[in-house]
């Protein structure tokens, strides 16, 4: 099925694959920021996930083991951040930047020897006859399981924040850690758990990059995806459903502009190249303008250290 020379099915498939790493990382960061911690080390956690996931998948021959390893590596990086910022009360911004640099360097070191290796292929989910349905089949039922897992995770995150008691506690910790502490909630424990979850998702996103989207290991291969994830959390005004919109919009337009070029459209390439950034910003600005409180949507205690005696 083509529309104006662009194959919609290929576009959708590329869109979902292209957006998944950023979607996973942004969802993880959303949870961490909702708990009041600003972790700028997303890039570092992603690249460690990409490296560890790739290495384990190649060694064991199992992509599932690779994704698990990616999540564990990301979570370990996040725990390092948690020890520094939550226990030792270091500055979150500086520690986050350091985590990114540390992750980039460490992954380059451990990743030596994995360049040019081909990872085991991650299978598509078998939907049987569903994937045979024209248009809908290839668009909705022809992806690998990580794509579906990422969508389910967004839905779960949304429901968790909105409907559960645990989600309420998490938000309380992010909005006012002193009040949450006075009520008897363990602020530090909640924040460490949120960070670990965020790290695991960033690592999973990184592993998706090296195991499915590219697929190979190269030093520095995240090339700024972690920063895009951070930006999407802000643009989404800390709401899970908007993280999904932001990530898919960004990934979709990135994929679309490359396909428009390949199809030989006479649209100035400069415009196409900046389109993902411009359109994502415009759409999310409109979204937050409609919901007037969007501008103040940041958790009130975001980036502030908590110490019980304070």
């Amino acid at each position, binding site marked *: 099925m083509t529309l104006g020379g662009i*194959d919609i099915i*290929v576009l959708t498939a*590329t869109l979902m694959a*292209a957006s998944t*790493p950023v979607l996973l990382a942004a969802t993880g960061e959303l949870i961490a920021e909702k708990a009041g911690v600003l972790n700028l080390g997303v890039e570092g956690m992603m690249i460690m996930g990409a490296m560890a996931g790739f290495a384990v998948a190649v060694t064991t021959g199992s992509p599932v083991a690779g994704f698990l390893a990616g999540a564990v590596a990301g979570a370990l990086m996040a725990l390092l951040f948690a020890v520094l910022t939550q226990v030792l009360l270091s500055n979150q911004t500086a520690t986050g930047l350091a985590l990114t640099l540390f992750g980039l360097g460490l992954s*380059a070191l451990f*990743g*030596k020897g994995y*360049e*040019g*290796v*081909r990872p085991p*292929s991650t299978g598509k989910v078998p939907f049987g006859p569903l994937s045979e349905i024209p248009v809908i089949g290839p668009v909705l039922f022809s992806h690998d399981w990580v794509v579906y897992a990422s969508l389910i995770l967004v839905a779960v995150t949304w429901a968790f924040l909105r409907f559960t008691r645990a989600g309420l506690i998490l938000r309380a910790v992010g909005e006012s850690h002193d009040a949450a502490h006075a009520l008897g909630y363990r602020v530090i424990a909640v924040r460490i758990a949120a960070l670990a979850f965020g790290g695991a998702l960033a690592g999973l996103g990184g592993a998706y*990059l090296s195991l499915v*989207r*590219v*697929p*190979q290991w*190269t*030093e*520095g*291969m*995240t*090339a*700024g*995806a972690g920063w895009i994830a951070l930006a999407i959390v802000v643009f989404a005004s800390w709401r899970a459903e908007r993280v999904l919109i932001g990530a898919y919009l960004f990934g979709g337009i*990135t*994929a679309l502009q*490359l*396909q428009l*070029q*390949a*199809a*030989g459209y*006479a649209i*100035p*390439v*400069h415009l196409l*190249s900046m389109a993902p950034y411009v359109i994502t910003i415009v759409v999310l600005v409109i979204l937050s303008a409609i919901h007037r409180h969007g501008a103040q949507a940041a958790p009130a205690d975001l980036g502030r250290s908590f110490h019980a005696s304070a």
Partner: protein
Amino acid sequence: MNRRSFLTTTAALALAATSLPAFAEEPLKVGFIYVGPVGDMGWSYQHDQGRQAIEAEYGDKVATTFIESVPEGPDAERVLTQLALEGNKLIFATSFGYMDAVMNVAAKFPDVKFEHATGYKTADNVAVYDAKFFQGRAIQGTIAGRMTKSNKIGYIASFPIPEVIQGINSAYLHAKKVNPDVEMKVVWAYTWFDPAKEADAAAALIAEGVDVVMQHTDSTAPQAKAQEAGNVITFGQASDMSAFAPMPRVSSTIDNWAPYYVQRVGAMLDGTWGSGATWGGIDTGMVEIGEISSAVPEEVKAEALALKDAIAAGTYHPFTGPLNKQDGSAWLAEGETPDDGALAGMNFYVEGITAELPK
């Protein structure tokens, strides 16, 4: 005196003070900046091979350092300044976009020599060097034109600068020569190194029906994507990328900087270094053609190798008239070849390419 110039002067004085007494035994410090990581297995990897060749050749007489993944732009100027302040006497800046940063820093450090890859601005202490990648593209174009079944060739381009445009034109002309039906599809990635984006670009081209993917970006991601597709051939870029042979990588253009680097450092050591412009090709060994794999039919391989020999011997120039520009206006008359200056400023597609060149 503002704070910055105070700091610079103080640092320079401190350096001068510490380095003077031990001048005779001090090794020559040589610095490198790379646009990608050393492990990109392409462009920056090859430059680092050149750096290692310097260490191997001169041992204790030199001390090299490198800084990788330096973005083109203001950051490059900061890094170059830092290298100069650290006492590096010869600095290799290995990407086109470092050009203005090199010129600015070179003006501030007249006693430090700079070597800028693929640029065109020189000064008393700035030399430029480049390789004739378009010669390699001529051979790739010949193989591509012979091997394509869909008659569509895809090209992942980085930035619309002469170095890249020469490659697209050369590949197209030589593919067209052996296969008049061939069509060239170009995707501009606007990056030298971003594996995910390069992979997406390759996927978009493959979806458009190309069965040859050429790249002027630095990572092996397009190779991995072509391997996944199965029936698509690629060429190693900058480095041999032999991990992907025999399929999809059927041949490669290798940038061999080592002999040039060794020679220039030698000139620094014996005090004969001078500014200038070097543009090496297949003849001087700066451009090497990687092994043509078993996936290529024998007669095509022979044809490609004959072309390589003709270029090396100087009996054939990849841009030989009659050639028209994309808009149909005449560029080269029958039998005419362009001089290096004209090539170095190439900013147009040749006739037959339908895509539009970004300005």
